[in-house]
């Protein structure tokens, strides 16, 4: 299982964040909100200069590219806890929960 963080921030910002926090998982930049629109997650009112921002969400995609689980939070302050995702991976029998 891999973890991928997607936001509207540019690669430089993500690089800085990884350096500061020591994150080793993948960070991707969606400055033009392309993937964000494709996943229907555009929050058009937010973000800088009215460019829009993403509404928080998590998707679990299996090796065949199929969505196996999704969480579209109703509240900005409520996000999936790591333990909740691990439980989902376990329950779906997706194999090793070793995160890399």
């Amino acid at each position, binding site marked *: 299982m*891999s*973890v*991928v963080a997607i*936001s509207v921030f540019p690669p430089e910002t993500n690089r800085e964040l990884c350096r500061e926090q020591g994150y080793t998982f*993948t960070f991707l930049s969606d400055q033009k909100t392309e993937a964000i629109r494709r996943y229907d997650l555009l929050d058009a009112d937010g973000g800088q200069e009215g460019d829009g921002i993403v509404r928080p969400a998590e*998707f679990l995609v299996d090796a065949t*590219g199929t969505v196996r689980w999704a969480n579209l939070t109703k509240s900005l302050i*409520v996000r999936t806890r790591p333990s909740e995702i691990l439980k989902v991976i376990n329950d779906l029998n*997706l194999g090793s929960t070793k995160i890399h």
Partner: protein
Amino acid sequence: MLKRRWNAPVWLGCLVVLATPFLYLSLFLRFPALRDRPWLTFPIFGVGLAVMAFGNLRAYLDPWSYRGRRFGTALGVISVVVFVCFDAGIFYFARSLPPLRGGPKVGEKAPDFALQGTDGRLVTLADLLDSGKTGGSEVNGTVLIFYRGDW
């Protein structure tokens, strides 16, 4: 002149009310069972406001024995404002998200994308699911986390 007693409940009550939003944001959010029941903060707010009301009541009814009429009133106003703002934030502003229309559902194919990684190179969803491109370790899936900011 008679020395009036310090009116602890108005301070204590205010402290409880001010601490409750921090309690929710720092502790409750860590536990899904508490996180998903923000109304559990109501009894705690209630205790704080009740203790404060008691302090205020005796300051007004027995001003010769108890201090805290001015402070009690001010702290009472602050407490009610904090309570209202916290609830407006939790129950309204944090939930004003755009309606969901047609995102990928469970069982459907996840839409592909090509986005820049931290090194500026494009990464596609197909790359992320390809064992050959992830450093040799076997891939059984990926968790896509769309996040707003790192605050």
